[in-house]
């Protein structure tokens, strides 16, 4: 597997934009891949990128985007599944990295947008703004295919590798404090039914 920028760190990673990266990710999804978005701006930007039937938008349960995506990946091993979440969210559920590593679903990729802040509540700092490195935590938990995105092109390349190869994988992008491009419509049952239609599981 080609790692174009194998030695990227949080310090050397370019400062990217979540809205732009979400659109770049979604543009590369051609095979009805499932995308599970955690709460807050992660979720809003996925919504704003176009309401694909295979998108699931959490409305609470902070930290559970990765476990939900793991469940989808186990149920549908032939479908690629992406979990999108923020640094504040994954910091609440770091054990999920170990669970994913131990379960080793080939079809699961976790994408973390790291802006070092709880942006939606007033940009209070998270632990990633000081000492915690999400990629290092994930590797320590056993998720070996974990990388920082060096820039937009490298992010695209990492997504392409995830689509073509086996997981589980983690892609972490250092992002700015840009506002999301929209707001998710908060109708839980509609969200679930659309998602299940998209996955072909609605009875």
């Amino acid at each position: 597997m080609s790692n174009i920028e194998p030695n990227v760190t949080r310090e050397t990673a370019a400062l990217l934009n979540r809205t732009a990266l979400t659109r770049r990710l979604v543009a590369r999804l051609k095979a009805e891949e499932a995308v599970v978005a955690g709460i807050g701006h992660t979720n809003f930007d996925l919504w704003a990128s176009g309401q694909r039937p295979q998108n699931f938008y959490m409305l609470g349960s902070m930290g559970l985007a990765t476990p939900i995506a793991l469940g989808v990946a186990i149920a549908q091993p032939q479908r690629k599944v992406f979990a999108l979440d923020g640094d504040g969210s994954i910091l609440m559920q770091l054990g999920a990295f170990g669970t994913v590593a131990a379960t080793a679903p080939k079809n699961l990729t976790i994408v973390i947008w790291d802006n070092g802040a709880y942006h939606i509540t007033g940009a209070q700092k998270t632990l990633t703004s000081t000492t915690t490195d999400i990629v290092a935590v994930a590797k320590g938990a056993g998720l070996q295919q974990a990388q920082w995105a060096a820039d937009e092109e490298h992010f695209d390349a990492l997504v392409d590798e995830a689509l073509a190869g086996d997981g589980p994988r983690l892609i972490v992008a250092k992002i700015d404090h840009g506002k999301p491009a929209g707001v998710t419509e908060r109708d839980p049952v509609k969200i679930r039914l659309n998602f299940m239609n998209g996955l072909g599981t609605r009875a």
Partner: protein
Amino acid sequence: MAGETTTETWEETVVRVLKANDVSLVSYVPDNVLARLIRLLEADPFFTVIAPAREEEAVGIVTGAYMGGKRGIALMQTSGFATIVNALASLACPFQIPLLMMISERGTLGEFQQGQAIVCRTMRPVLQSLGIEHFAIQERSQVEFVVDGMVRQAFATQAPAAMILSPLLTKRAA
């Protein structure tokens, strides 16, 4: 469904009823009372068994699997149930997920840890305030009827369900 036999343990009955209802994913955080059930589930290739770090993860995993077309159940102890309230209130309940939970009840009828006794008293008020169907199985003879009925109702009504394993079932001498 095959009839209950007197030689079956409660754990064997649970395994049989889960299989009969096509509940094939199990996610658990262990405790002593669940140990034999977990061994049976892990030994049976019908089941995919995931042991995450926290009970909340189990709620997420079972929820995702359900939406992906695979039925699952989360196993936990009373103290673990106390950690998942936000996930129930913001995920399982509003999204109408038939989240099956099997909770081994600690903290009553001979508990020695004060913390377990105190957290146990929060379980039923929480289940009631969230409007979650729950039933404590106390007798060996109730296992098949209760588990089968609660599993079927959860999927028929798109609602979470909590099957509580009372010490009367799991600790009392036969």
